[in-house]
């Protein structure tokens, strides 16, 4: 396991002025936000949150069904959020959780009120702007009974910022018959270290759908969000698309624990190494029946790099149905030849297959974010990396 030396980064004093209107951001910052799925004019968004370095600079809801606050304000307003705050992630887990606990810079508190069906996504971006900044955030998401929402959250570094560290705690509560779609797009830098520590709990009939996209270089990222399905008939689904260029070291995956009957989950990760390292973990534990889980790790090594798939299935009751499918390889020759027989040359065939592999249509993203991702994939292919 790689290590991060936190003493290299500035965890004090990088406070930022509040920004009332995101349109007043520089074009470069706005472009960075867009890469993360965040639109500055807040059109087609029900709420927005922006964290820059050590400050929550913008926080606004456009829908009465959504309460969005700087976590520091939420802790004051709700008397420390005792039922939620640090209940899913152990504050003493490692040096990163301890750092976030001891010196909190912000993070979003999102509560979707019971029964509210929020049509437009809630957007958030956690941005590193200063050079060598260390950022500690703690996010809390509560989707109350019967509510539905889509949160798009991006993390990015400002244009020109090279080095930084992001330590983020996230805790998710999906209540009875509630549904959360959580889309995360990462745009870090080549010298950024990232340590999210996330966990969630899903109650009866609840749905947790997660999308994760990482197409840009990041020096060192390690995350293994864990979702516990405590309610009967709950559903969890994870889709990840991850690329590791040279210099990227990614240790990531998803863990799902099914503790109630009638639960279903699916974890699908599609990864490409073009010189970097990907450790792709996956764990499904099934401890009640009936329960059904499927885990898929598909990896392509293009050029060079390393993909280490570690799928784990853990069943402790008769009648659980768990399966996994893992592959690490190159683009299949029969796929290339199929397209060449239609008149595509080898380079066209290869890039068509890679584009398909990275296809994110299934995630149901808003048009502008989808276009940004498609553009990034094209840029990736135009570069020599693929």
């Amino acid at each position: 396991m790689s290590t991060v030396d936190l003493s290299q980064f500035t965890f004090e004093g990088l406070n930022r002025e509040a920004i009332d209107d995101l349109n007043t951001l520089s074009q470069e910052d706005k472009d960075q936000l867009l890469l993360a799925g965040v639109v500055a004019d807040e059109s087609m968004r029900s709420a927005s949150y922006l964290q820059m370095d050590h400050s929550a600079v913008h926080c606004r809801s456009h829908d009465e069904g959504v309460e969005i606050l700087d976590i520091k304000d939420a802790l004051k307003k709700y008397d420390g959020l005792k039922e939620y705050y640090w209940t899913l992630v152990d504050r003493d887990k490692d040096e990163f959780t301890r750092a976030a606990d001891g010196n909190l810079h912000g993070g979003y508190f999102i509560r979707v009120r019971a029964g509210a069906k929020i049509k437009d996504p809630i957007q958030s971006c956690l941005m590193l702007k200063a050079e060598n900044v260390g950022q500690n955030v703690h996010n809390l998401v509560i989707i109350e009974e019967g509510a539905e929402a889509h949160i798009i959250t991006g993390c990015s570094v400002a244009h020109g910022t090279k080095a930084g560290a992001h330590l983020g705690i996230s805790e998710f509560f999906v209540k009875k018959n509630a549904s959360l779609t959580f889309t995360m797009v990462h745009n870090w830098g080549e010298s950024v270290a990232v340590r999210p520590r996330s966990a969630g709990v899903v109650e009866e009939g609840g749905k947790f759908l997660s999308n994760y996209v990482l197409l840009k270089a990041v020096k060192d990222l390690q995350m293994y969000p864990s979702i516990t399905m405590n309610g009967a008939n709950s559903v969890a689904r994870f889709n990840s698309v991850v690329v590791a260029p040279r210099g990227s070291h990614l240790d990531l995956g998803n863990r799902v624990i099914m503790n109630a009957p009638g639960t279903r989950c699916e974890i699908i990760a599609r990864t490409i190494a073009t010189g970097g390292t990907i450790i792709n973990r996956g764990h499904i534990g099934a401890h009640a029946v009936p329960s059904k889980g499927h885990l898929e790790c598909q990896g392509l090594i293009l050029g060079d790099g390393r993909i280490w798939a570690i799928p784990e299935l853990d069943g402790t009751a008769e009648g659980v149905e768990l399966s996994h499918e893992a592959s690490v390889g190159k683009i299949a020759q029969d796929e290339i030849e199929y397209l060449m027989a239609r008149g595509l040359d080898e380079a066209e065939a290869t890039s068509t297959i890679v584009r398909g592999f990275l296809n994110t249509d299934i995630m149901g993203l808003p048009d502008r974010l989808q276009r940004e991702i498609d553009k990034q994939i094209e840029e990736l292919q135009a570069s020599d990396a693929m």
Partner: protein
Amino acid sequence: MLTIEDLHVNIGDKPVLQGINLEIKKGETFILFGPNGSGKTSLLMALMGFSGYEVTRGRILFKGEDITQAPMYERARLGIGMSFQRPPTIHGLRTRHLVQMCSRKGKVNPELLAGRVNMTEFLDRDINAGFSGGEIKRSELLQLMAQQPELVLFDEPESGVDMENMQLVGKVARDVLDGNFNIAPDLSSDLTLKARKESTRTAGLIITHTGYILDYVNADRGQVLYKGHLCCEGRPRDILDHIRQHGYQECVRCMN
């Protein structure tokens, strides 16, 4: 159109074709018979240029050009199209997108073409993902219609197809061979209707086991491939009747 001269092909060290000579004229439909393992599929694969099918002797000419060593995409662009038996699934590649890419000559209307093979609802699915036998055939024909080849290689158009689908597959296969791609005819030329029809016909090399496809297409000639050698040329119907009565044993005698 297609001339095969003394073609020898190996898979690894194993010879699978040993001295094939064959000529297919423009617009002609040629049927290839033969028992399992006789080298029929290998011949198609070698003509298309698949890796692993090594030409050790002889040559392949298409429209006068020696394509023996040409890469697959050049053969495809020259006008050779192939219907695959077991095409791979390509994740994230929509059937619609592939149909568009098949047409290098310009615009095609995927909806229009898909309607003809009852594939409209498959346009937004990943190519070949979970397709049944009949759906694969229809999807292959859809791609061929977009590609508009001058020579089509069909590997067992009837395999894995139920009777209901067979009618559609057979009819569209015939359309493809007739050059009926739903493209407006060139009315400016002085050719008679009959001559124009002749000039737009697509040549075909079809492998069949059961012969069902003969109920749909106008096959001109046929031949039996047996253990890597071609023998017994004749009218496809006659060959089929003969095989039905006597099996392929006759071919062995014929060869000796």
